[in-house]
């Protein structure tokens, strides 16, 4: 009964499509589908998540596509990444096969997997296109597993070739604009290909606008290709960090002759701050290469140019400061992971992460130290002591916490010692306080004098 309900609307759509679509385009769509469909992968990874102060494992569903005969697969980082414990894939011929995560990049939401095939096994592959040559209005199709429904195809056009997504997406995906399409993209399409009528993959489907109809977004394949090369070579993408944000020149003036990009903010203690860069400066060139962003769509390439500077080396930024030109030298640092490692402390009932530069800035810490509480379990020792998500533990029993690893050590030592009270020095926002955690009193404790 269910199956019928699902199939009937599909017939209706196909019938309508046949009536309006010219036969030549219909054939082109089928040809393009045939070139990509065999290389499609339905991915069901087991992923670790930390919520409510505990570590859990959940099964997620996504899509991917094979790019080499030896079994490299591109998908989204939010489908299968560092936190995936087991990656199960189903190929187009319904063969089930496990894959290994070779590397992933949260900043572009790209992950590279390798299928664990039998010795000598080869896989069908897709052809990658050139996303820089896309045009709005061009017919494209999305392949994948929307809501877990494998082998689905949806058809549409490119709505916009270079959509800039601001807000929190700007923090999560700062280095690319997005291909916007009206081809239906739903949860489960993530990691699947966006394909042109020549049968070339021109994007990796990754986002949809909720509350809207058919507003989906794909990562341009040229960005994905570069990330995949880096991961193949180094297992990860290395980027430089200067500790500043850039804005388009329209944020200060409408004058089209004003060149460069505007420095919006400079993080304290960052390389940019140390080299004397100030908000309001205009960067005209990076190592002699001119940079310019009049509109915000032009910002991702500028951010990428800055991130692509070699880590630990000196770069020269040519600036316009209130009309006077100057060159400043800045030594880059490596951009750290977005979130850092997360761990669950079962005995205390909380989860903790590394203090990232972002957390450090928000808490106004003068040095990167401590451990960040990401969640607490209701009724656990940490929660009972008044510890909560968002707290930063600065010291345990008087000993300053250097980093996450050190905090884990101090936690283990405290648990092993069995001492009743553990004092933590905790910071949240501008306020600090003392949190006294009461250990023990839990199951397994034997009352004195009890002789069975």
């Amino acid at each position, binding site marked *: 009964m269910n199956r019928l309900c699902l199939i009937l609307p599909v017939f209706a759509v196909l019938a309508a499509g046949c009536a309006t679509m010219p036969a030549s385009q219909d054939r082109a769509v089928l040809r393009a589908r045939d070139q990509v469909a065999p290389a499609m992968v339905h991915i069901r990874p087991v992923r670790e998540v930390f919520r409510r102060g505990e570590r859990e494992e959940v099964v997620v569903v996504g899509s991917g596509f094979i790019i080499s005969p030896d079994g490299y697969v591109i998908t989204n980082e939010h489908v299968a990444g560092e936190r995936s414990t087991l990656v199960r894939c189903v190929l187009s011929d319904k063969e089930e096969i496990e894959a290994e995560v070779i590397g992933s990049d949260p900043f572009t939401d790209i992950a590279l997997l390798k299928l664990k095939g039998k010795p000598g096994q080869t896989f069908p592959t897709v052809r990658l296109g050139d996303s820089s040559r896309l045009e709005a209005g061009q017919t494209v199709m999305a392949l994948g597993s929307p809501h877990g429904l494998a082998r689905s195809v949806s058809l549409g056009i490119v709505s916009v070739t270079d959509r800039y997504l601001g807000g929190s997406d700007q923090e999560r995906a700062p280095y690319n604009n997005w291909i916007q399409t009206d081809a239906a993209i739903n949860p489960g399409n993530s990691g699947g290909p966006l394909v042109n009528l020549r049968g070339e993959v021109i994007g990796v489907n990754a986002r949809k606008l909720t509350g809207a109809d058919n507003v989906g977004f794909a990562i341009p394949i040229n960005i994905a290709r570069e990330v995949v090369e880096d991961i193949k070579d180094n297992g990860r993408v290395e980027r430089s960090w200067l500790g500043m944000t850039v804005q388009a020149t329209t944020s200060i003036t409408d004058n089209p002759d004003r060149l460069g990009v505007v420095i919006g903010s400079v993080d304290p203690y960052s390389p940019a701050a140390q080299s004397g860069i100030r908000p309001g400066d205009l960067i005209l060139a990076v190592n002699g290469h001119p940079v310019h962003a009049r509109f915000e769509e032009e910002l991702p390439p500028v951010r990428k140019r800055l991130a692509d500077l070699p880590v630990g080396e000196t770069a020269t930024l040519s600036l316009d400061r209130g009309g006077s030109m100057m060159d400043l030298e800045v030594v880059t640092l490596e951009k750290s992971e977005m979130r850092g490692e997360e761990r669950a402390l079962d005995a205390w009932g909380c989860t903790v992460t590394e203090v990232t530069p972002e957390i450090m800035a928000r808490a106004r810490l003068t040095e990167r130290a401590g451990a960040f509480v990401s969640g607490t379990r209701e009724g656990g020792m940490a929660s009972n002591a008044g510890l909560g998500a968002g707290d930063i533990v600065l010291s345990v029993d008087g000993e300053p916490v250097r980093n996450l690893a050190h905090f884990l050590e101090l936690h283990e030592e405290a648990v092993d010692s069995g001492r009743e*009270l553990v004092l933590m020095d905790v910071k949240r926002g501008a306020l600090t306080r003392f949190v006294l955690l009461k250990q023990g009193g839990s199951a397994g404790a034997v009352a004195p004098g009890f002789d069975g």
Partner: protein
Amino acid sequence: MLQTATCIAIALTQTISALGAMPTGTVERAHERVAPALCVVNYGLERTNPATGQVDRSSGSTLGLIVSPDGLVMVRGHMQIENLQPFNVRVVVGQGDEEQDYPAKVLRKPDNVNVLFLKIEPPTPRTFPHVTFARGVSLGLGEPVMAFGLLGDTFDNARGVQGRFIGSILDSPRRYYGLDTPVPNGFIGGPCLDANGRVVGVVGYDLTREQGGDLYARAGYPLVYQSDLFTRYIDNPPSETELTESAEDAWLGVFTQPLTDDLARYWNLPAEGGIVISTMVDGSPAESSGLQRGDIVTRFNGVAVRARQDRDVLDFTKLVRETGVGNEAEVHFLRDGEPMTLTVTLVPRPTAAADALEFEDDIFGLTVRDLTTDVRIMLNIGPDVEGVIVRRVKSGSWADLAQMRPGAIVLEFGGIPVTNIEDFEAAVERMAAERPAEVAVFCRVGQRTGFFRLQPRWPAE
């Protein structure tokens, strides 16, 4: 627990009404004296959506109590809270043929008791009927009291009296008397009299945050606000804009937490107790006196300090507040278990955000406030950041078009550094004179800074 039990017992065994328990003639005499001092306050209310700056207007009416012959009126505090501002306030005094309608101005709301004062502005001076509060009266459990109020619009706001018994006595954070059963809405803010006809306080439902309750948090259980809580405002009414009262409150500049039994045990401290300094505010008297975070204050200005539970912390705040600005207080404390003493000179409590002056620019559509100490703490902004915080953005304004939002801190306006609202006002005035085609505004949003560009269209000169 014991008090609750007692209270129930009284409710069950009392067979006569509270009014009936009054000596003969008491109720009539009290009514004659108090009812003329009751008045009806009609007002408009502006409710500002802090996110959009959009203002909704509504009207309302409440019971007022005239507390001085020159027309000082006390009303419940809910008429004026954050984002809610009364306007066009009118007070109706007397009933029937003697009814008179006067405009009134709203005085600065006291910050430690949830009442508001109005001043009637009659066209020609007159003497108003008023109540005089008895001070320092304590009530006993089960004692009958009279509550006076209005019967509401449908009964032409006729004056009425209801009898209640004192059903509970609360000792913390300071002494309150609870009535045994709820009172109708028209009686809130009305006078409460004891069996001797003394006006001992007013009936209210809520405590302010500083009294240990969130606004509305304790709604449903009526309390007698004793006259001692507000008589100082009657003796010395707050002005229309200036903060007279809070400026006199003394400030130490620390956040504290209770020294729980467990903490005392952990630190191996004697059982006498104290209060733990958990956070030191930048640039506070505590900081300059040499007090440190982690110090345990045991004695302050000669008064022993003991805080074992969260609510005890309020007693310390009150103690500091009432020690007096400019006074040198001796602080006894423990540092690493060693007793130590030092002297701290108290300063006036810094202005709170809710009391900070606002400037509304009618060109760009921004309403800004000075960065007050409490906002700095709430947003974790260091002393190095100077600017004004955007409170409202007028819908459809140039600022709205530039996507400026409340909460942004303006650091520079059109290239002019802004450290306070005077600077901001001057910068706006300068822009109005220079009429530039675009104005770059440098702001701090969260921990980041950035630019917004305003493109005003100036009217033809």
